């Protein structure tokens, strides 16, 4: 005899949190996921720069200035690195046929510090000294462009994220305070924002740069660039958050929080600002490129990151000569890296925006 089947054996479906809903909508946007994957890859490379780059970013090869890219070849199911020899004339190189050495993985090479802490010397790949592997060629000092690109991404990519964190948290607090208290506070803060926004960004950047001493250590310059870019960036964020706060402060849950005896600052931080997160996350993603480009501009103008440190803007600075551009186009590799990064951020940001829009499906 059959037993009666229960009416429903299904597990009660747990309601999804807003973040889970957000993720479900984001998953359907492949191009955004692609952008996100590219970014994760780029940031991982930046974090493990020392391990992935075959050489130290300061290492000079005095025999090979402006060397064109050297790519490993596949021979008998093994990667081998050809040897190049310099021909008479200006930096003309030719591969020596038949003279190759195998490409090695996990080889010992230049010393570096993994994550800036752990001393190490193992690199992902490398070859012996007479058969150097310059994937993107070398620059005017015979430094490996590929290695410098990877080390440079540490500066260029982190400036975007740290700059956004700094300027957005500042902008959110200021905007929240401005919108929450309204009245005279609001008027003063908003006029200051408009003042900052009304000055053309480039002039502001350069005049702000002038307020700092001309010679600084790399770390100081790095901090200075972030401060300058954040100083310019917070105002527009503050204005948008202020507008959202003006409407949120009238919500009953704000009054409810006040009836519980919650302080103004906590109401702003805990009740109002979290309601703006869906906007902020999207805006932050779409704004990171401006900070990356800001560093590029500063370094390109020669007031940003200084030699021998590596950043994408500084490397492009070396390529601004048209003759270099014509004869040694591999020096433009950082431009391609910037292009890919900015595009990836925009793909991801667009997808986040669609996913954060609760009206979309």
């Amino acid at each position, binding site marked *: 005899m059959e037993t009666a089947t229960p009416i429903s054996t299904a597990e009660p479906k747990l*309601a999804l*949190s*807003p973040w889970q809903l957000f993720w479900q909508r984001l998953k359907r946007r492949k191009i955004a996921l692609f952008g996100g994957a590219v970014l994760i890859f780029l940031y991982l490379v930046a974090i493990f720069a020392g391990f992935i780059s075959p050489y130290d970013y300061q290492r000079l090869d005095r025999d090979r200035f402006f060397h064109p890219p050297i790519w490993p070849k596949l021979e008998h199911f093994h990667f081998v690195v050809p040897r190049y020899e310099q021909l008479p004339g200006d930096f003309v190189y030719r591969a020596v046929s038949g003279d190759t050495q195998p490409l090695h993985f996990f080889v010992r090479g230049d010393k570096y510090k993994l994550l800036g802490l752990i001393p190490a010397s193992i690199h992902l790949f490398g070859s012996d000294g007479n058969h150097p592997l310059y994937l993107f060629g070398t620059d005017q000092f015979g430094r490996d462009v590929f290695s410098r690109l990877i080390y440079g991404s540490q500066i260029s990519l982190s400036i975007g994220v740290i700059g956004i964190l700094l300027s957005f948290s500042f902008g959110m607090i200021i905007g929240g305070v401005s919108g929450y208290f309204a009245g005279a506070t609001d008027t003063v803060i908003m006029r200051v924002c408009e003042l900052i926004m009304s000055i053309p960004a480039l002039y502001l950047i350069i005049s702000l740069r002038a307020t700092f001493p001309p010679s600084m250590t790399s770390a100081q310059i790095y901090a200075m660039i972030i401060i300058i870019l954040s100083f310019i960036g917070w105002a527009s964020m503050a204005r948008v958050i202020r507008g959202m706060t003006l409407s949120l402060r009238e*919500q*009953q*849950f704000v*009054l*409810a*929080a*006040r*009836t*519980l*005896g*919650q*302080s103004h600052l906590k109401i702003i931080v*805990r*009740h109002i600002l*979290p*309601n703006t*997160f869906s906007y902020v996350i999207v805006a932050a993603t779409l704004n990171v490129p401006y900070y990356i480009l800001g560093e590029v501009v500063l370094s390109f103008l020669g007031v940003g990151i200084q030699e021998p440190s590596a950043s994408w803007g500084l490397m492009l600075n070396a390529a601004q000569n048209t003759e270099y551009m014509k004869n040694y186009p591999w020096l433009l590799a950082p431009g391609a890296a910037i292009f890919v990064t900015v595009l990836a951020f925009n793909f991801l940001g667009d997808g986040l925006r669609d996913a954060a829009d609760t009206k979309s499906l």
Partner: protein
Amino acid sequence: MNLLEIKNLKMDFGKGANALRAIDDISFTIGAGETVCLVGESGCGKTVTALSIAHLVATPPANYVGGEILLNGQDTLKMSARELQNIRGGVVSYVFQDPGASLNPVFRIGNQIKESLKLHRPEKADDAEVIRLLKLVGIPAPESRIRNYSFEMSGGMQQRVMIAMALASEPKLLVADEPTTALDVTIQAQILDLLRDLKQRLGMAILLITHNLGIVGDMADRVAVMYAGQIVELAPARELLRRPLHPYTKALMNSVPKLRGDTNRLSAIPGNVPRIGNFPPGCRFAPRCPIAKPECSEKIPELLEVEPGRFVRCPFWKTE
């Protein structure tokens, strides 16, 4: 000593020539464990009066020009911001009309109740206490409900959560501002039952704001009827409902639809509620009053104790 004592409270919106008198000479008391109802039409100042108790109306635009609000003997209008934060929630808690809007949509309800606990009873700010509170207000399966967001609950459940939040701090006075208006009738009855039950169990006083006279009969010990920023009648609930004295109260009770009788049209009070800033001189109800006399429009009548415990703002209350 009464738990709450409002004496001759006067409050304007705006200052100087633009001042609009929103609350005019309001006085009433609430004893410990008592339920007082504040009744009146929309815009007559009920909510503003209730919010004033914990000084929750922003100043400016509000401007308290006279009177005092003694909560446990201390004037809340003179308190510092720090003292007010302790009073809010600690002594007086609020429940509002629209529970969906009163809960923050980006937090789980358990965390919101915990926020109230952290502020007033930090030693008990844990899940166990939140679950106990949710049980207290009759939410089934509270262990799983604490992880819900407000928009995943029905209106009645949301209101129960709001009440749990208000109770978390163990207040002496619960101000419920039309707590059932946004709910349907069966849920209304449940929420009112809950409030009555909690009042008995926890011994708190309730200030219930409503424009539903049925709720008054159900819940109140005493009633204050407000009209255009003034209390026009203050009386024990039973007596007021059985024998209203002020012409406005009478008219209000006449407007309640009756199930029996052969009237086929609702009786309404002629005219409109005067707008704030545009009050008629003298008695504010005079233009709509069936028994108004010419002298009614000359001087604002006093709120007089005409019988023990019964106050009426009308010198002609004996007129039938």
